[in-house]
Structures are given as structure tokens and as C-alpha cells.
């Protein structure tokens, strides 16, 4: 019983530490707040169900990010209402009416720019923006750190270019 309580407490602590960043990761992947919320829930349900499989080979955060990455990559396969968010669908002007704050508009643009990257690149850049160490990103995404560095360099440039193009539209 006390073990169960401890597990509950530990899980609650993990959830409070990582839920926000995992939500941002999911949001970068799909750019839809409701879907991102579903993905976040699925990620933590999987974390809870697989908690006994965590062997400590990596940091717990990396382990959670791995689950989140797989949850995101798997999501569109089951998604019947899957949609591609395009600039036309989410026009900047439309968003402007909803929230006039320039900062929020800029953040929305950033997500729209991320949305135009390849699926895997969206996840990578989200972790870069969250300032996760490269070795942890490499472990979460399952590629070598050297390869990851090359990818990150390219994705950063690509994202900045896309963002500028959207901003100047």
C-alpha cells in the first residue's frame, strides 16, 4: 500500500515537472491545442503503465521524452480527424482578432512555422527550444549525437527562414 502511495506521489511529481514541456512538444508536432492535450494524456498514461520498465539507463526525463516522441509519431496513424494545419486554415488575421497581443501572435507564428517542418524535425526543434541537452535529445529520438547536431543546424536555419517568410507575408 505504501509502495503504491509512493508510486502515486512520484508520478505526480513527474507530471508536474514535465507535463508543460511535453505539452509544448506535442503542440509543436500538431499545432492543435486539443490534440496536443490528448497526446499529453496518452504520453503520461503510457509513462504510468510502463513505470516498472524504467531501468535507469537514461535520465527519467529522457525516458519520458522518448515515450512522448513515439506517442506523437504514432498519433496520426489512429487519427480519423487528422488535419494539416496550413497558413490558410489558421490565418494570422483571424488570430489577430482573437488575441491582439503581438507576443501571442508571434508565438502563434512560431508554431505555424514549426508546423511546416517535417514531422521528426518538429519534435527535434521543440526539444532544442526547450534547451534539452543534445545527448538527451539524441537518446529520445534514437539517433547519434553527431547526426543530430548536423540535423539541428539545418532545422534551425530552415525554421528561421520559414518564420521570416510568414512574418513578412
Amino acid at each position: 500500500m505504501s509502495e503504491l502511495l509512493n508510486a502515486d506521489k512520484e508520478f505526480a511529481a513527474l507530471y508536474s515537472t514535465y507535463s508543460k514541456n511535453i505539452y509544448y512538444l506535442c503542440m509543436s508536432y500538431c499545432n492543435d491545442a486539443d490534440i496536443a492535450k490528448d497526446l499529453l494524456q496518452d504520453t503520461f498514461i503510457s509513462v504510468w503503465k510502463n513505470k516498472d520498465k524504467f531501468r535507469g539507463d537514461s535520465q527519467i526525463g529522457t525516458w519520458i521524452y522518448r515515450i512522448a516522441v513515439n506517442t506523437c509519431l504514432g498519433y496520426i496513424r489512429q487519427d480519423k480527424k487528422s488535419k494539416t494545419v496550413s497558413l490558410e486554415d489558421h490565418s494570422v488575421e483571424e488570430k489577430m482578432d482573437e488575441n491582439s497581443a503581438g507576443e501571442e501572435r508571434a508565438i502563434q507564428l512560431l508554431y505555424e512555422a514549426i508546423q511546416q517542418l517535417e514531422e521528426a524535425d518538429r519534435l527535434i526543434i521543440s526539444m532544442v527550444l526547450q534547451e534539452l541537452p543534445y545527448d538527451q535529445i539524441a537518446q529520445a529520438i534514437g539517433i547519434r549525437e553527431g547526426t543530430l547536431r548536423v540535423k539541428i543546424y539545418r532545422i534551425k536555419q530552415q525554421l528561421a527562414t520559414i518564420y521570416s517568410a510568414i512574418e513578412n507575408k
Partner: protein
Amino acid sequence: MADFEKLQSLWNKQEPAVVIPAIESLKEENKTAKDKLMQAMFFRGTVLAITGIVVLYFLFSDGFGIASTLSFISVAGLGMLCLLQGIVELYAGRKLLKIEPLQEPTVHIHAWENYFELRRRMLAVSGPVYFVSFNLFMVLFFLEALQTYTIAQRVSIFIGYGAWVIFGWFVVRKRTTKKEEQRVIATIENLKRIQGALN
């Protein structure tokens, strides 16, 4: 070109667009989307397989009181079809079971690819085979069951049934299966692309 530091500082200023669900909601909703899909598949597979087994068991134990060979073959065929379709569903469910959230993403993607490859084959092969066999066994059953009817009645029933089959194949199937087939093919291509990006 916007520099990346500017984007980084923007990122750091954000707040979630929705309220992050409370931890209690996870306990209420304790199944992932994949779990639900898998559960539905196992349920369908089990029901179909059990139906097939029950039909075949009664057919071979007391024959349902069926005297003619034609009816016996048609009921046996229908029972066998249910069983086989059930096995296919259970096999697909097992493929889903093998997709684990802790796998390396490339392995994970490959497992999804395997699952969708099976789905594609199910749509392209087992779907039509099921449809054709089912209707063939139904025709055999009708041939026997309609023996006491007049020729004109038999012809009109077969025309009605045939029209329904043609409608099912060319209209209903085209609308549902084709769309699903396209979605599955697109998904496989997408998975291959992601796989390539992760290598």
C-alpha cells in the same frame, strides 16, 4: 532572416494554450488511443471467431437439422468465414500489441508500418475475398432454401440480391474502403518518410 535566438526567446515567453489536465483526469482516462483501438480489434476478432466456432460446432454435432449437402456447405462456409475473419482481426490486434511506447522511434515507426501494411492487405485481399465468399455461400443457401418457390419468384429474389451485392460492391465499398485504402497507403508513405528522416 529571423535569427534563432529571437525564436528561442519567443518560445520561452509562451504559456500553454489550454489548461494542462489535472493528474486525476489521467486516472479516469486510463487507456491510450492505441489501447482503445487494440481493444476494439480484439473484441471484434473474438466475437467473430467465437461465432464461427459455435456455428461449426453445432453444424458438425447435430447439423442444425440440415439435410441437404448444399445448405450444409453454405452454413459451414459462413461459419468458416467468420472464424477466419476473426483470426485475421486478432492477428492485426497482435501487431498493434507489439507497438510499444518505449521502442527506439525508428523501431516504433517500423512497427506501425508493419501494422498498416497488414491493414492494406486486409483491405485489398481479405476484404474482397470475404465479400465474394460470403455472397457465394449465401447464393448456395438460397438455391436450397428457395426450391419450393416458382421460377419467377426465384429469379426476382436473385435479381434483388444481385442488385444489392452490386450496390454494396460498387457504391458502399467504393465510398468507405477506397477512402480508407488511400488513407492507409498515404500513412505508409508518410511512415517511410519519417523513417528516412530519422536515419
